[in-house]
């Protein structure tokens, strides 16, 4: 567990115009680790992600990346600092081909040859995606789209990658490959901030866990601490190792 947080949120208050959704969120994302945020539906997890990536401006509080203030920056500026997000809802360019989507993942890379190389690398990592290259992204199945989104995010070499529920809609086999990829990226230096409803899988993958509830952080600790917290387990993680 490396020490200094790469990203720190401090007293963040944010909303969409109808009151505050985040009501003072404070937590840190340790550098070089995988951190998993869990919590009930509507707790504000995705809102946190949006605040970090600059899609949503907080009303109060600060977000810092290595001490540099992020709030007020545009998504492009934040992206240039190495923060990449895979959103929860499907955000592919549906009428463009899968290849064009992947290509756009490297939009900020000026050098075309680098883009070409990265595309190849991504295709090598997810050979299925190469097979769909010529298809319109919107025509893919739900799970396939998810995978393409993930692949698109890998076009850049991120410092911090934000994954909002990567597991959603993926079949077990594909999910494994996505988690493997996340782990691999982490191993090669990227910090990962993950939101997962599949909490046990997510927390197992992570060194750190954050539990959000109703716009605030309820608990933060190591992945195992969170996973084994009795009350949390009952409330949000589907009970403690309950067999169906």
């Amino acid at each position: 567990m490396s020490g200094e947080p790469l990203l720190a949120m401090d007293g963040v208050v944010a909303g969409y115009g109808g009151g505050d959704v985040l009501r003072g969120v404070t937590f840190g994302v340790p550098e070089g680790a995988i951190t998993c945020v869990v919590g009930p539906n509507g707790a504000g997890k995705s809102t946190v992600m949006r605040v970090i990536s600059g899609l949503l401006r907080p009303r109060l509080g600060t977000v810092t990346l290595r001490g540099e203030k992020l709030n007020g920056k545009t998504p492009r500026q934040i992206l240039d600092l190495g923060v990449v997000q895979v959103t929860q809802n499907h955000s592919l360019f549906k009428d463009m081909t899968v290849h064009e989507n992947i290509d756009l993942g490297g939009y900020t890379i000026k050098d075309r040859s680098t883009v070409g190389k990265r595309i190849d690398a991504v295709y090598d990592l997810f050979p299925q995606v190469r097979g769909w290259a010529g298809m319109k992204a919107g025509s893919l199945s739900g799970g396939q789209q998810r995978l393409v989104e993930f692949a698109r995010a890998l076009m850049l070499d991120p410092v911090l990658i934000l994954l909002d529920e990567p597991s959603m809609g993926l079949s077990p086999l594909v999910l494994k490959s996505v988690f493997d990829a996340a782990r691999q990226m982490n191993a090669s230096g990227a910090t990962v901030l993950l939101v997962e409803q599949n909490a046990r899988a997510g927390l197992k993958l992570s060194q750190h866990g954050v539990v959000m509830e109703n716009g605030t952080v309820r608990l933060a600790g190591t992945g195992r601490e969170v996973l084994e917290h009795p009350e949390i387990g009952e409330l949000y993680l589907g009970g403690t190792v309950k067999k169906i």
Partner: protein
Amino acid sequence: MTDQDGVLMVLAIIDGILVGGVYALMAVGLTLIFGVLDIINIAQGVLVILGAYLSYSLFTKAHIDPYIGLLITVPAMFVIGVVIHWAFIRRLRGTERTSMTLLVTYAVGLIIEGVLYKLYGATNVQLLPSYGNSSFSLFGNYVQWVYVWDFLLAVLLIGAVYVLLYRTRFGRSVRATMQDQTAARLVGIDVNRVAALTFGIGVAVTAAGGMAFGITNAFNPNSGYDLISRLLSIIILGGMGSVGGALGASLFMLTLESVVSIWQPQWAVAVYYAALVIVLLYRPTGLFGQKAVRAQ
């Protein structure tokens, strides 16, 4: 149908194709602005007239040939487009964005029209270069050179817009922005800049449409009103955002109209619109709709 009718028919078809080229030229900009950016640009007709007046001024005041004058009017209109977008359209967002763009472009159209009245008065004028009515003979019919040039210009501009949209990084960013602004911002696209540039380009190519209109029709500041519904129907018939479709639809529309007007000129417009309805019922996305940047 008599022999005579057959001759007239060929003539009508040639007419339709030639005038269709001019309409295509006026519609390309709208395809970009409405079809791609989803901005309901009610000002398109007025912008055409503005383009015509710019060419007219250059021609009458500085004796610059209208076609060469495009080198000046196109960049000028580009700047006007970018400014309009930057000042007003940029602020619109959310589900009302499209509807509110109608308000903005209507207002901009009113202001441009008002200014044109102030500058040029209400008198009808026309661009009258020396070659304006010269023609050559084809299958026993006369074809005006300016229509040929306009047609070629339309093909050229449509090709250029196509390449820009589908073969360049900028074009990809345009299409991406229009499909999903949030996702576009997440991959690092400056959506406001991209939209402003696209709007600017749409207005810029309209300068060429205006020149073509002004060389083939007399106009005054009010002449834009009759154009807008035709241009709208052309780009929908062509398929939203389909640049090639705009040309195809223009040719279809004007040819049909001119053929019908051999016998029933008073119904020609109605026949075109009836055909439009029928085609759209069977192809709701337009003739070339499947290539549209946006599916439904």
